[in-house]
């Protein structure tokens, strides 16, 4: 049989209708409803924060060094937020990423693991952290997809259990990284930008490609947009759901490596409440909590907005409590702006 069947039309379609799609490319409104328009609120918010920072803190804020501080601050939450974006677009939620990250940092710095790393290569620590994240993610995904447990509950259970397991393994001690090659790698500086930021850029880039250019991304949108339609169209919905949580776990593992590089120690308290920051960044970035719609670009902006906000407050010596209030306001305002700009394009009929 041929690649596809075509059916000859009973009568030719009117010419005016077939010509319609051509005009799409030159339409200025189409551009505005595209990626620029969708993220307009976020771009404006980030620009406003920069303006506030530049006015109140002057050169201290706009210095290249400070911009790097902001990016470094954004990088770890940023990596977790990329994984979270996939889970949320796929119609789920993952509350466990922060504590999985803590667990991965603890397991990767166990003396046995470090001894193995010292006697062979530092990459062992990286693999262990990734494996722990991936395994926790697969457990989440399996329980949710095949055990039919609500994602909120399944990942809440993982949040509690992973944190507890990390405490047991670390005996509530801080485990210092003793592998110099690992530290050397994490302290590498390419083109004046340090490793943490490079990892964030790589993960965000890979996430963008995965979501927009691959069958994995297409399945994610289908599963989150209409689960039943995806199932009846032959998409392996359950398997894909499991993969989404495994991906979120993997990003938690990457984040664990990053926090080890930054703090030079693994502890069970790493990543506490990171899940909430990540969810906030994803939602502020325009991803629908109900699933089916969202962008990596938006999430990156969301992360940058929160990191910039923190930096502006620190530069002005304001307390973290004031900062928390401002964060809350930002979340609401950003979501309102999102609805204003995207609502006209999708909801008009």
């Amino acid at each position, binding site marked *: *049989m*041929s*690649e*596809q*069947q*075509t*059916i*000859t*039309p*009973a*009568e030719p*379609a009117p010419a005016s*209708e*077939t010509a*319609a*799609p051509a005009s*799409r490319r030159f339409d200025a409104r189409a551009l505005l409803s595209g990626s620029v328009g969708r993220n307009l609120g976020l771009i404006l918010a980030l620009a406003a924060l920069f303006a506030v920072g530049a006015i109140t803190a002057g050169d201290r804020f706009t210095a290249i060094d400070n911009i790097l501080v902001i990016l470094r601050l954004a990088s770890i939450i940023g990596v977790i937020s990329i994984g979270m974006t996939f889970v949320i677009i796929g119609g789920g939620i993952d509350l466990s990423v922060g504590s999985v990250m803590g667990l991965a940092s603890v397991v990767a710095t166990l003396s046995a693991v470090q001894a193995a790393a010292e006697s062979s290569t530092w990459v062992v620590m990286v693999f262990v952290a990734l494996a722990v994240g991936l395994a926790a993610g697969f457990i989440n995904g399996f329980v949710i997809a095949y055990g039919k447990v609500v994602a909120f509950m399944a990942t809440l259970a993982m949040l509690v259990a992973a944190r507890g397991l990390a405490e047991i393994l670390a005996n509530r001690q801080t485990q210092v990284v003793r592998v110099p090659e690992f530290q050397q790698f994490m302290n590498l500086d390419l083109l004046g930008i340090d490793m943490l930021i490079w990892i964030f850029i790589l993960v965000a880039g890979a996430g963008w490609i995965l979501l927009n*250019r*691959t*069958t*994995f*991304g*297409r399945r994610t*949108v*289908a599963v989150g*947009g*209409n689960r*039943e*339609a*995806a*199932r*009846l*169209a*032959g*998409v*392996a919905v359950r398997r894909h759901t499991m993969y989404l949580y495994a991906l979120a776990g993997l990003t938690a593992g990457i984040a664990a490596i990053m926090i080890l590089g930054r703090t030079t120690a693994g502890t069970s308290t790493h990543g506490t409440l990171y899940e909430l920051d990540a969810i906030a960044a994803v939602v502020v970035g325009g991803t629908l909590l109900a699933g*089916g*719609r969202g962008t990596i670009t938006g999430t990156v902006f969301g992360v940058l907005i929160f990191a910039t906000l923190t930096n502006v407050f620190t530069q002005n010596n304001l307390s973290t409590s004031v900062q928390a209030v401002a964060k809350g306001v930002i979340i609401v305002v950003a979501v309102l702006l999102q609805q204003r700009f995207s609502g006209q394009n*999708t909801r*008009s*009929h």
Partner: protein
Amino acid sequence: MSGISKAFSGVQALNGVDLEIVAGEVHCILGQNGAGKSTLIKTLAGVHAPDSGTIVWNGEEVALSSPQDAIDLGIATMYQELDVVDGLTVAENIFLGHELAVGGFTRSGEANARARRLLERLGHGTLPPTREVGSLSAANKQIVSMARALSHDTKLIIMDEPSAVLDSEEVKNLFRVVRELTTAGIAVVYITHRLEEIREIGDRISVLKDGRSTANGLPVGDTPTSELIRLMTGRSVANVFPPAVPVPGDAEVLLDVRDLGLDGVFEDVSFTVRAGEIVGLAGLVGSGRSEILETVYGARRATSGTVRVKGRQLRRGSVRDAVRSGIGLSPEERKSQGLLLDEPIYQNVTLSSFARYARGGFVNEKAERRVATEQISALQLRPADPDRPARTLSGGNQQKILLARWLVNRTSVLLLDEPTRGVDVGARAEIYALIRRLAANGDAVVIVSSEIEEVLGLADTVLVIADGRVLSTVQADQIDEHRVLDLIMEGTAA
């Protein structure tokens, strides 16, 4: 209303439509899906503001900039998607938006009493005002919706396809209520696909086609049905069902279902479908006909029996195995089971096949758009823009997306569950012709429809089903609608 125009995102939904409604009449609005009926009533209800044109109410020109404006004038609307809140009681729903309250405290006693009076007026005094609406049937929800419309000082009620969710007995009651309303001087705008309903209830008819008025206020009694169809479609539909093509006896058996059963739903269902053959399942709602299709497809896990496609046995309960073997299902609920409403047409068309166009896991949007565009022109899908979200299409065109999905997926066995539900007369004829041509191309087709006439008109072979059992398997040309109904009655009684 005169000269109403409205465009959305560059699409002209309404183009100079005129409509005149007098007190106490039932004014029917007829038109195919996408003709602009919904846009027209939303304009009248104050949801959309017209780009041009005027609305004159009782001799005065009015601007309806919000639904509240329309309600204040006495225009109430009952939307197609029932707009009641399941978690609230009957009375709370009726007074939703204008609660009876003193200083912010609701007066539930008074509300319940007034709700009861409204329900009595609608002939449903037995419906308790304190009952939660979520537990009511679709028909009763509609009564609640109608009571809400009457709770305002209403002079015009717009009903958007009210009969779509009702069975024939409930439709009779609806008509009785409509007649009482018009006797009281209230005008009713009634929107429907069903021509026979217009005959029964309508006083005058206006017809829309492609956003223009093709007829305005024709008296129902003097207008023949053929004329209405011509006004709606722009052509005369002499023969709705395309002629059957005889299936050669040696044609390959593509689908072979043996002793299929699903505990408590149906049992011992056996049939075969040859290349080029259309098999119809005729039965009433609840007979198990949709469940049979879903089980063949693997969306439900069979408890007994086998399904073979081209001789190869399918794994039970595996949709993926079915799809890979060349089966496609167009589900009963198009929107909730078939489409990604916010995604573009082309992604909906390739939802089952995008992985095939992909290379190394990377999707090939260019190729997907190309095949979708080919299908759009082959199936005459409108609007012909592969990037338009599926949500914005009419029912008939959404149905074509689902057909296109399986056409691009090398499907050889098509299972169609209610392919013309919510599709109007003109688009139906197109879909019938499409199904016929698919069979002529060598596909095997199984069709389920609640309209027995449709099954008999399209199918070569008919399975009559009642209570989850196949009562009879006959050639479609050797049976008629009466005989099918007789069989069902006998079968159910036995």
